[in-house]
């Protein structure tokens, strides 16, 4: 556990993020960061005064817009966190992490950026004043578990962290977080596999929001973060007819990989490991229930989304792809698709490449090419599955291997 996992088995899934007002869309695949300006209708050229080129030197693991769209952050295996102004697309702050970074969050007011490292530590940096090579302060820690998602509650009172040990921790975000966040509000416990994603549903009835979480256990759950109470569990794969109700999701085929609220949480889009398409859940905030609304299949090509994003409208942006595929001609494979007209009443529309916002230029920018060979995506979907397995699924060693593993442990070697 002391040595980081070997590089050669590591494949990073493609990521997507959309500006809350749909001003721009960003895709990260491998170490590439690609941004398209939807208002100008052209690719954005990012600038980093520190002269770093490329901006990231290893797989990017987390990107997101924050502070109501004013900021954008990117981070990953190169142990750097970069904060960009979305006005100028200039890197305004960079932070060096001791370990690889697995998740990031930006406080709503744009004052703080938090990031989680591979050892379960969450760090915080103050963006005022923005500087290069800012020193982060430790905020909180999950004991040696990979943190998969970091999220501020909509009211800013809590910071949430989810890990691969099934745990979601809700911590009070203090007045002066640079001294650490010591007061734990609750733990949301109930998932039986790694937690892969978090999102908040906001509604008039519930200004502090309800929490949604997706997991390797093939469920999406709804929580009250204040008490940690589990409000509802939606067995998405079973309910969507992907899984026999008595079937065991042992091979993690139905792991929830990402979720994203659409229309302020009225609907929730869910990506599942083996599903060519997405599942839409409807969330009833007053009854505190989740139910499958419809399955939106994407036919014609092997499109299993690795990441979802939605601005506050009824549009859902999806990406699939991986950093590198052994024996594949496309070094950084990404495919972007859009579903529009998502509404409770309406039938959602899978937007064709010719009518995608930003058009061919956007596809060229974000995918690296306007068209990609379908077969590559089947391979990509497989690679992502393997990568998720390595990252998230707890390794179950057969007991006869345990002795040999112990023998090659690092600390033993040192002593020997």
């Amino acid at each position: 556990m002391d040595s980081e996992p070997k590089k050669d088995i590591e494949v990073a899934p493609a990521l997507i993020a959309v500006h809350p007002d749909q001003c721009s869309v960003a895709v990260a695949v491998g170490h590439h960061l690609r941004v398209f300006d939807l208002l100008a209708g052209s690719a954005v050229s990012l600038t980093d005064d520190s002269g770093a080129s490329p901006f990231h030197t290893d797989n990017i693991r987390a990107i997101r817009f924050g502070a109501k769209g004013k900021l954008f952050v990117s981070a990953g295996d190169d142990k750097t966190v970069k904060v960009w102004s979305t006005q100028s697309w200039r890197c305004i702050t960079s932070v060096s992490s001791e370990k690889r970074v697995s998740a990031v969050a930006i406080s709503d007011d744009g004052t703080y950026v938090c990031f989680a490292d591979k050892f379960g530590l969450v760090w915080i940096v103050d963006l005022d004043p923005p500087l290069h090579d800012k020193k982060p302060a430790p905020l909180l820690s999950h004991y040696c578990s990979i943190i998969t998602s970091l999220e501020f509650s909509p009211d800013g009172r809590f910071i949430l962290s989810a890990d691969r040990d099934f745990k979601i921790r809700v911590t009070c975000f203090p007045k002066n977080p640079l001294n650490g966040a010591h007061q734990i509000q609750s733990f949301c416990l109930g998932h039986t596999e790694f937690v892969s994603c978090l999102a908040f549903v906001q509604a008039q009835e519930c200004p502090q929001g309800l929490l949604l979480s997706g997991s390797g256990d093939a469920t999406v759950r709804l929580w009250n973060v204040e008490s940690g109470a589990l409000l509802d569990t939606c067995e998405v794969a079973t309910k969507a007819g992907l899984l026999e109700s008595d079937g065991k999701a042992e091979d993690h085929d139905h792991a929830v990989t990402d979720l994203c609220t659409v229309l302020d949480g009225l609907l929730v889009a869910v990506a599942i490991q083996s599903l060519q398409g997405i599942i839409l859940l409807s969330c009833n905030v007053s009854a505190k229930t989740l139910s499958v609304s419809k399955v939106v299949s994407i036919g014609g090509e092997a499109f299993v989304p690795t990441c979802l994003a939605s601005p506050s409208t009824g549009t859902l942006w999806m990406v699939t792809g991986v950093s590198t595929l052994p024996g594949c001609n496309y070094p950084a494979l990404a495919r972007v698709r859009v579903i529009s007209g998502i509404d409770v009443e309406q039938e959602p529309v899978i937007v064709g490449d010719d009518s995608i916002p930003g058009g061919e230029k956007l596809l060229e920018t974000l995918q690296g090419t306007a068209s990609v060979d379908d077969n590559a995506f089947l391979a990509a979907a497989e690679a992502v599955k393997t990568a998720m397995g390595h990252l998230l699924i707890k390794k179950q060693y057969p007991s006869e291997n345990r002795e040999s593993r112990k023998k090659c442990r690092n600390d033993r070697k040192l002593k020997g």
Partner: protein
Amino acid sequence: MSENEVNPTISKSTGLPRKRFYRARAHSNPLSDSHFPVSISPSHVDYSRHYPQLFPSAGQADSSKRIQFADVGCGFGGLLISLSTLFPETLMIGMELRDKVTEYVKERISSLRVANPGQYQNVSVVRTNSMKYIPNYFGKGQLSKMFFLFPDPHFKEKNHRRRVISPFLLDEYAYVLEVGGIIYTITDVEELGEWMKSCLENHPMFEALTEKELEADPVVKLLSSATEEGQKVARNGGQTFQAVFRRIVPSDQTS
């Protein structure tokens, strides 16, 4: 096993499990991945399995009685056995990472239950990694006492994060402890004693007990005498270093 076959792991003279059959590696690496079942949440802890006489039915009858004391890294369980009769109305549990040691404690408790009908019903043990799974066993403010007696020292700087008392883990202990609850630590390793004390002193949710409070607390006397490790240290005439702190409401209430 037929009826008159003897169980070699149980001493014939005392009826207690023999320790030598339950020896294990002296130190475990608490960071390595687990191979034991983990409770999904505090409400999933099966009280009827741990305290069968007090919780006769398996169902989670919403009994108000919850575990209140946790002995973390309980080893062979000496402290629990002493506490069991001192606080007969309180439910308590030991948490231990080593499989064989946990089995020993289980045997020890069941032997004591058989030999002393009606007693030792309030004590149990669970095999788990306390550094990862405390919140899976106890809810917010559930515990009134936590014990960390003679924990593994992990001397090397790079192994300090394996220590059971650390600034970050104290956040979790503060969460499971009720306000006014007490955390007891003791060690014979001076450097570790200093470390535990400074972690507690620097944490906004803990405050040291006064000398007077320490004297009045009957549990303090058990720290150096009740456990197997404590007895070993005492036999060798070793010095001990204790730190006993109370869970408080942080002054920065706005946080």
